[in-house]
């Protein structure tokens, strides 16, 4: 590991108010109050309410979505277009209205990542992206076809050994 963890600059601002985040992975971190995201419905099946995005640098491939209230709860997320150029998010009208998104530009999109010892086993959940809208976060169900729950992030790595075999 290298470099300090810092809150991901989703929400900039000059407020000096900071909130303490206790992490079993990263220790104690100070999070600017304006960087705390409110998830009104939590993560699907996991709950949680307040989270922060933690990254080592602005161009980190992976960012941690870390609970402010549960030191153990954190999920790696990534910008889906970094790995899947043709990824699309479609929400049904009720869902879009529920979270207050009227156009794609309203939201910053992340997908959750399941890490593994080998990169070819990394998976991204394209079915349930996380949309950050202002200081709110929502994990939503993507209605777009071809949005698997477990999409290989490094599919190209997997093909090479099998070709050689």
């Amino acid at each position: 590991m290298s470099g300090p963890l810092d809150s991901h600059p989703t929400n900039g601002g000059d407020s000096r108010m900071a909130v303490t985040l206790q992490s079993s992975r990263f220790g104690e971190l100070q999070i600017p109050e304006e960087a705390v995201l409110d998830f009104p419905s939590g993560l699907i099946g996991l709950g949680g309410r307040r989270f922060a995005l933690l990254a080592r640098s602005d161009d980190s491939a992976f960012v941690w979505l870390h609970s402010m209230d549960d030191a153990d709860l954190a999920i790696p997320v990534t910008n889906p277009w970094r790995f899947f150029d043709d990824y699309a998010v479609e929400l049904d009208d009720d869902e879009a209205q529920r979270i207050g998104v009227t156009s794609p530009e309203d939201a910053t999109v992340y997908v959750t990542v399941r890490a593994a010892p080998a990169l070819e086993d990394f998976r991204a959940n394209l079915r349930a992206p996380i949309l950050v809208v202002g200081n709110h976060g929502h994990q939503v169900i993507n209605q777009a076809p071809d949005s698997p729950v477990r999409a290989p992030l490094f599919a190209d790595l997997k093909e090479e050994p099998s070709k050689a075999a």
Partner: protein
Amino acid sequence: MLIITRRPGEKIMVGEDVVVEVIEVSGSSVRIGIAAPKSIPVYREEIWAAVQAENRAAAASDVAQLPDDVPTPTKNPQ
């Protein structure tokens, strides 16, 4: 589990705010309408369960498995 017989057009109240309506019965399929407050997301159970399982698996990710210098993906539109 509460089991109730309903006909198309009939409804069930869950608490004060959630209305479940049987819209249509056709063979082995039932179309159901659900009206719930915005604060209550509604999911198909199998999708909810699959996402919960994946969220749990992702939350078990090891920090050491996410190095800063992952291979640069070949697909990067920006």
